[in-house]
């Protein structure tokens, strides 16, 4: 299994080079946010106000980490289910967000925005939260501290393991992977 090491923030060229199914190791700064933070960001955009964080060319990780125990930058920090951010994600891509990390299906609006603006949806392994947290070197709260685990953090990650679930052309591992499996099984049974 070949693994690509990706430096964040991603350039448009890197975005274009990634294909659904690629295994990657992410390096550099990422933002975090879940539904509550997304709701606030989009409310600000609706009012025409400036956001408290820069999202252009950034990658956002859908996560609400467990509290850090002594000696750790962050507690267990696996991905949360992404569809809850679907209502907000296209707005952020419109202003330049080019990476999302989560788990689970996305709707057509999100995939169309990914194709239109050039963005990647990465998957981290749901539940592998203690393992993922080992690749988070530092964590700081950027804004919305009142949201606790749901605040927007900046993580700096080193060799964060992920898979390209949906690429900027809209190719989707959640469709390709299971379909390929079923085709292989059907071929085996046919023999």
């Amino acid at each position, binding site marked *: 299994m070949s693994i690509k090491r990706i430096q964040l923030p991603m350039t448009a060229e890197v975005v274009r080079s990634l294909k659904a199914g690629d295994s990657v190791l992410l390096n550099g700064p990422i933002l975090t946010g879940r539904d509550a933070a997304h709701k606030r960001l989009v409310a600000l955009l609706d009012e025409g106000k400036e956001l408290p964080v820069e999202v252009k060319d950034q990658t956002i990780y859908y996560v609400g*980490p467990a509290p850090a125990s002594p000696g750790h930058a962050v*507690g*267990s920090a696996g991905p949360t289910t992404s569809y809850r951010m679907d209502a907000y994600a296209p707005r952020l891509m419109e202003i330049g967000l080019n990476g999302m990390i989560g788990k689970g299906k996305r709707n057509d609006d999100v995939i169309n925005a990914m194709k239109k603006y050039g963005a990647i949806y990465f*998957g981290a392994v749901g539940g592998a939260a203690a393992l993922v*947290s080992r690749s988070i070197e530092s964590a700081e709260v950027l804004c919305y501290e009142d949201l606790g685990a749901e605040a927007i953090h900046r993580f700096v990650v080193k060799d964060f393991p992920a898979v390209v679930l949906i690429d900027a052309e809209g190719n989707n591992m959640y469709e390709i992977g299971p379909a390929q*499996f079923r085709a292989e099984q059907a071929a085996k049974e046919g023999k």
Partner: protein
Amino acid sequence: MREIQAVEIQKAIEQLIYEASYVISPDIAKAVDEGIEKETNPTSRNVLEQIAENYKIASCERVAICQDTGMAVVFIDIGQDVHIAGGNLEDAINEGVRVAYRDGYLRKSVVGEPLFDRVNTKDNTPAVIHTRIVPGEQIHILVTPKGFGSENMSRIKMFPPAAGVEGVKQFIIEAVKEAGPNPCPPVIVGVGIGGTFEIAAQTAKRMTARAVGSHNADPRYAALEEELLTEINKLGVGPAGIGGYTTALAVNIDFRPTHIASLPCAVNMCCHCARHAETTI
């Protein structure tokens, strides 16, 4: 009559939450290891390897297996010859939850009101408590901290009896298929058949904590469990939903008496971090 101090229950709850949150039960770890052997696609196999490695890190370092440390669901069976002294039961359980989520570095994921304010209670209380009064003078406690990535993919349907075995089968398979990658497969599928609306759901929840590899004592239900597991693993959803053999680790079914007019079926989806721990006082 045996007297049990409320604080003993509180401490038991605290310890069970630590145990469940940090250490996966061996039957689940074994099933994931078996999945690694089976997967041929390297990316799918790597997902299971990450899951297995994660179990090891969490138990060695005593950190949460998953950051969604869930709502604390507590099944407590109280012997009718027990007298709980020095406090009341619900307070003792909630205090155990409060201390465990604070001192155990577990995420607080409960909002006090679901629709308007959604303000976090900041201590993961209240627990969800299912109490039964049973014969004897012991207390049995089962704690199943439940994450909501999989909880949100759960389904219930009040079938007419004519839907029969086939209707129930299709409903369960469809629930896993539709959920796809969202509940963090490989999943454990808890199924409750019969009862009333709420009993079907509660039975399904209990089934998420039954050991992988165990079967219903009724051979017809045991056969149904096997058949459904095989069918679900033909869907190809696979580890993390990216395709493969290992979509579910178990389908655990239990049944309850029901009304002549109904065939309730509840499917409670649980991720591979199916956390549970139990003790008897």
